């Protein structure tokens, strides 16, 4: 039977203690923030019409839950983010492959990708609405434009920094470029790809909300816009609160996928 030394047990204890403190700190900060907000609202130091309050947020959530609005809006936003994320991930990896495979193409497209990446995409909003139509398509289009260029750039950069020695190995074994891609470039860079996808999912969310603010009749972005138009700021703040929770959940899902992959690759 394997036993740890006393020092090691102590060390593990210390580690666990530290983790508990951090978790406690996270929860504590959240509760303190909400309590202060609530107390200030109750004492009427904060104007709840402008700044809302945790209890008002809760009752707004309750109302939205009862009339079935909450599920509908969360679902539509999640759905749009999911579609944009999938499209820009697959598209981004595919375009990165093309750029890796055809070096000349990469050199030709370099300035265009740089410009498109740094262009504030919201400026294209009115054009997208006119060209694509004021519906879910223009929302996904907006999200794609916002997320795909960073995805392409970071995945392509990772592809071309694959160590030369492996490329020489594959060349000396007469591998085709498709073989080199599937058996070397993709698996070798899987960590970087996941890191790029992590950024991608938050960019997709940003794009979807931006699109919803501009055109939509559904979704959390729409709720925010609608709430501000009828000056019901409880609704706006509630939607923002839910949005925060949603983006955290999406981040955790990707994080979990990454941990699963790491577990599979025991070499790490």
């Amino acid at each position, binding site marked *: 039977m394997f036993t740890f030394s006393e020092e090691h047990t102590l060390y593990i204890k210390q580690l666990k203690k530290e983790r508990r403190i951090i978790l406690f700190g996270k929860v504590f900060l959240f509760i303190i923030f909400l309590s202060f907000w609530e107390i200030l609202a109750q004492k009427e130091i904060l104007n709840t019409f402008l700044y809302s309050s945790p209890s008002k947020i809760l009752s707004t959530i309750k109302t939205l839950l009862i009339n079935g609005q909450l599920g509908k809006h969360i679902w539509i936003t999640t759905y749009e983010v999911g579609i944009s994320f999938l499209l820009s991930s697959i598209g981004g990896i595919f375009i990165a492959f093309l750029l890796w495979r055809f070096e000349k193409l990469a050199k030709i497209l370099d300035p265009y990708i740089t410009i498109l990446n740094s262009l504030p995409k919201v400026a294209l909003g009115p054009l997208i609405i006119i060209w694509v139509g004021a519906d879910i398509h223009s929302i996904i289009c907006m999200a794609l434009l916002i997320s795909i260029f960073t995805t392409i750039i970071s995945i392509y950069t990772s592809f071309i920094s694959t160590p030369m020695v492996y490329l020489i*190995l594959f060349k000396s*074994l*007469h*591998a085709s470029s498709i073989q080199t891609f599937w*058996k070397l470039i993709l698996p*070798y860079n*899987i960590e970087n790809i996941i890191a790029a996808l992590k950024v991608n999912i938050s960019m997709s969310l940003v794009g979807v909300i931006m699109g919803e603010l501009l055109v939509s009749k559904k979704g959390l972005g729409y709720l925010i816009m609608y709430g501000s138009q009828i000056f019901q700021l409880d609704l706006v703040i509630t939607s923002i609160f839910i949005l925060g929770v949603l983006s955290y959940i999406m981040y955790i899902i990707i994080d979990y996928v990454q941990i699963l992959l790491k577990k599979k690759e025991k*070499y790490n």
Partner: protein
Amino acid sequence: MKEILKITHLKKKYQTPTEEILALEDISFSVYPNEFISIIGPSGCGKSTILSILSGLTTPSFGTIELKNKCHLAYMLQEDALLPYKTVLENALLGLELSHNLTKENKDYVIHLLDTYGLGEFLNKYPNSLSGGMKQRCALIRTLALKPDILLLDEATSALDYQSSLAISNDIYNIIKKEGKTAIMVTHDISQAISMSDRIIVLTKRPAIIKEIIPIHLETESTPIENRKSKYFSKYYERIWRDLDVHI
């Protein structure tokens, strides 16, 4: 005996935007079955270029390479270049996988090689659990898996420390002799070349031509480490040292 590889008037020019570099001026030599040949020369003289040309990684500017009896070559890199996300067995099978030759028979042959050369218990482990020497052996087996007649070894031990390098030279030598292969090795290490080779080709500095081809007779008939104890060893060493004309 008939040669199995004949190289005549090999010449290689490299083009860069600012200049034209003549790496190899005129190289001709033959290789006979089961021979171990070392190519040695001053650093940067283009000795690795010869292997690159032979393995098809670069094309010569001039000259011919004749391979007799349809024999084929396989190249072993300076570094082990094992893929971290593949197991030892998968790494050893890489060449067969890429050339669509992953038959049961070939796979069994590779497993047999891994077993024979001390990697049997690591088949399903990842390269990070191997020592430097084991990695190099795995890389050699990946090359042997293709059943080449001639092995091209490019500074196969230069990435290792001195003692590992000695041990691996021994391993590589024994495996190559046992499997009955012919080998052409590029090295900068004079002792390594003498201890392993039947003949040593000494190149001049760039643009390289052959300074001389030295047949080695140590009269010890044993492993590279033992060969270093031969009474003729220092005589060869001095001769090559003089040939290389090293200025520091």
